[in-house]
């Protein structure tokens, strides 16, 4: 499923311009050190963390897009860095668990 297709199905608005990659998995974590060892290329990252360090980690492992849950919005410099890396950023008002259920409903496995 493409990032844009997922965004439409899950009702997400993007914060930036991004590469419309094919999402191949989901990784949920709030620790950047965990992302380096756990997230895979072209995965969708779901997190509460909005720090710039998150983008540095996500870029290193080639994450396709990031969803910030509970309505958290990153600062503009974080958005700018993600745009440069082609990583799509989205905000969901739901908590992590509820959003994970939404992802399941979209058909993303």
């Amino acid at each position, binding site marked *: 499923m493409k990032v844009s297709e997922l965004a439409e199905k899950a009702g997400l608005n993007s914060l930036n311009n991004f*590469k419309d*990659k094919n999402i191949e998995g989901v990784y949920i974590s*709030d*620790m*950047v*050190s*965990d992302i*380096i*060892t756990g997230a*895979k*290329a*072209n995965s969708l990252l779901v997190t*509460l*963390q*909005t*720090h*710039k*360090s998150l*983008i*540095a*980690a996500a*870029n*290193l*492992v*080639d994450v396709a897009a990031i969803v910030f849950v509970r309505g958290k919005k990153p600062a503009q410099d974080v958005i700018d*860095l993600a745009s440069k*890396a*082609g990583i799509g950023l989205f905000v969901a008002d739901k908590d992590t668990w509820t959003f994970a259920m939404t992802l399941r409903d979209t058909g993303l496995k």
Partner: protein
Amino acid sequence: MSTCRHQWAMVNVRNGYLVIEGCAKCKARSSFFSTEPIAPVDNYHEGEHFWSYLSSAQAVKFDLKCDECGEAVSLDEMMGLMLSTCREPECEVGRIATDAGRGTWVYVALCADSTHAGGKCVSEAGVKALTEYFNAQIKDQDKRIIVVPCIKCNSIDTCEGIVIADTGLTDIY
């Protein structure tokens, strides 16, 4: 020299704390990785230095091992990774990033001793394996990763970059 086209995999993944210390006398910074349940905050003498706790962050350490030939590369000396945003022409890392161009991201492998007084840093074999490992994971054909040792920075204490560390984790809520 090995002819294997290495297929690196992360092994020996350890979770712990990256502890940063500073010497009040010479202003040097040092760091170490602790797997204790709580990050150590002790002050102590070591030779001419008097190390004081500055900060800590949850961190992870790992080594790399080739699935094909079994060669292992220890990354014990690496304390963390930093996405370099340096573009200083006087800095070798800045020059590498500038020369590499769009789509290439330079990450600095950080060692424990910011002064590099002993001449030691993350090994050449380590940064080579890290570069190969991360590039092998990437599926975006327009993206490339270069990992360099922090000894190439003009001054790692002032070098521009984004350290991958779980600092401020208690602030996220």
